């Protein structure tokens, strides 16, 4: 017992000793290694780690003729925002992180953003689509993703092409992000005179959607827009299929984007997902790897194809790298200035941040796509079905 105590004390001292950051740039973030957001957050973290490996493998970031290696410091935030502020403060003060990347999911991002702002640290957010966060007066927050209000607009347009008079059911998780997404698209739908057959939010811990599905059937809904995160989205998709709900169009947030979604088998067919990025995207990057190179590297390393959370993680690093290299300095003010001025296309697509003081840092350059699971040669694949310019297959309806 006593021995164990000494061991603990010793390792505590070790952990507390300052990092020597002479030839490295330290970047800090938290990831949900445990808890409800684990799946999506892990993908994001993998993207960031791949970026680090790529950069360090090529000799690091070049700043004013000198090369810096990237050092990542990361902690588990347990998918709960209780610890996020403590951990980000620790990243800044103890681990001397010079730049920050956000945690995953809008709630945690908003919590972390307060700290980054208070310490004047630049934070690239990925997986924090909720626009509200960027309207609180931040100056150092830069949003990589397209904002939440845009998530389902594409899906609604695609749906209207197939069915001009849809009876839409909105079924979504009652978390900040999903609610904001649905709120935006519901307003649009109502304005256009679409029929809202059902409007139900559910708790993230919901495991049985039968009551909701029965309700949808009763309301004669033929399209479903909604979802939330991975676990609930997968359950909803599976039950829709099993209960043979007569919906012809299902767009769910987040969950179907993951390659794991294919585990659902036939339940996945026809389900579409608004995506920040897909491997089929045909962007010509001004900076960083090509889409193909990224996809290849990621697949080699993790034995699974990347989805948009992973790409977002990589892109967050890439954007930061670009800004630092352009600034020729690691000074946060100069890097922030470069980010403010940035308009660049990477494998992730175009990135441009709003400079409007009311919504500083909001993403205004990036566009989303709509992907759908389809069966091709007996295998489940995700095809891009919207916008038309980017599509790789026709939508199933």
């Amino acid at each position, binding site marked *: 017992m006593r021995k164990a105590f000494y061991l603990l004390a010793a390792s505590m001292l070790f952990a507390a000793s300052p990092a020597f950051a002479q030839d490295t740039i330290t970047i800090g973030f938290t990831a949900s290694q445990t808890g409800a957001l*684990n799946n999506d957050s892990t993908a994001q973290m993998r993207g960031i780690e791949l970026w680090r490996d790529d950069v360090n493998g090529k000799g690091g970031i070049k700043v004013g003729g000198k090369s810096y290696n990237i050092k990542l410091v990361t902690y588990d935030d347990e998918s709960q925002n209780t610890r996020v502020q403590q951990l980000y403060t620790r990243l800044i003060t103890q681990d001397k992180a010079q730049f920050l990347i956000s945690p995953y999911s809008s709630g945690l991002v908003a919590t972390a953003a307060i700290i980054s702002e208070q310490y004047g640290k630049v934070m690239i957010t990925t997986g924090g689509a909720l626009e509200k966060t960027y309207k609180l007066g931040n100056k150092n927050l830069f949003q990589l993703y397209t904002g939440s209000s845009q998530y389902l607009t594409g899906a609604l347009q695609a749906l209207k092409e197939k069915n001009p008079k849809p009876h839409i059911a909105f079924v979504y998780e009652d978390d900040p992000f999903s609610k904001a997404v649905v709120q935006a698209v519901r307003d649009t739908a109502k304005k256009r005179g679409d029929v809202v057959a059902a409007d*139900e939010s559910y708790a993230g811990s919901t495991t*049985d959607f039968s009551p909701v599905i029965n309700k949808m059937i*009763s309301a004669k809904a033929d399209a479903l827009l909604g979802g939330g995160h991975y676990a609930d989205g*997968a359950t909803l998709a599976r039950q829709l299929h099993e*209960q043979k709900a*007569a919906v012809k169009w299902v767009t769910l947030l987040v969950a179907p984007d993951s390659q794991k979604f294919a585990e659902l088998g036939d339940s996945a067919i026809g389900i579409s997902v608004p995506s920040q990025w897909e491997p089929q995207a045909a962007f010509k990057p001004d900076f960083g790897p090509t889409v193909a190179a990224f996809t290849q590297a990621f697949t080699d390393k993790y034995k699974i194809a990347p989805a948009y959370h992973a790409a977002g993680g990589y892109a967050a690093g890439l954007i930061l790298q670009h800004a630092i290299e352009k600034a020729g300095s690691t000074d946060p003010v100069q890097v922030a200035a470069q980010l403010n001025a940035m308009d660049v296309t990477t494998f992730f697509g175009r990135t441009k941040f709003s400079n409007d003081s009311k919504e500083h840092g909001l993403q205004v350059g990036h566009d989303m796509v709509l992907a759908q699971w389809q069966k091709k040669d007996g295998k489940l694949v995700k095809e891009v079905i919207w916008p038309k310019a980017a599509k790789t297959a026709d939508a199933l309806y």
Partner: protein
Amino acid sequence: MIGILASVIDGILIGAVYGLAAMGLTLIWGVMNVINLAHGAIVVVGMFVLYMLVSALGLPAYGAVPVMIVLGFVIGIGLYWIGVHRMIGRPELMSLLSTFALNMVLIGLGTAWWTTSPYNVQVNMPSVSWRGYTFTGTHITAAALAVVIAGLLYLLLYHTRIGKAVRAVATNREAAELCGIPTTQVLAMAFGLGVALAGVSGTLIATMFPFTVLSGEAYQLKSFVVTVLGGLGNPAGALMGGIALGLIEGLATPFMPVSWIPIVEFGLFVFCLIAFPRGIFSFTKA
């Protein structure tokens, strides 16, 4: 109208499984006056046992049910000796904390092993469709198995010597000891039985829905509600309580937003606790 009927049927089907989950909780509670806060974690164990058996060993899904009963029983007896035995007869708070600690350990080990990602076991069963509403085969099978297991538990408790000993220990432990019943072993066995029931409910749930290491908490809370509805310590009441909860969920849905249902559930839960603190069918501690 048909929609409501469909909701009722769905409610009964899922409710039977809730009842099975609660049965494990209520049995342990009734016999040894321990509220098992590791209940949710055990439900999760049942889920992952299904996953392992089906994915790794390629067993048919329902073949996992008997395996889980045996395994759950063994695990339960182990957990009893690790975390519960010293708490018997101590203040309730102590057993609450002790089982909560077991819960942390189990969830922690599960998280380290499987992470908190969702897992999915695809079970193919023919489903029944009726006027646009479909009742899936997994639901029907799970409900049927839940009722069968509840029936077996009833037979065990009321028509076997060992089951009667469990009831005797629940009613009056000291008198049971004086009758020559090895009460400690009976307690360990009852705990094993409770864990087996909770585990098997997890296995059945996993045939219906995707799950994660953290899924157990929702079922633990539901089990509390069911236990209170059906009467503490009463396995037969648990089944009825479970069906009642399923019905409430199913029946309330057509009339109110889904997000209001937990309020109804927990409001009812608190109300029942205050109005019928001993439940209606309690078989211990009159």
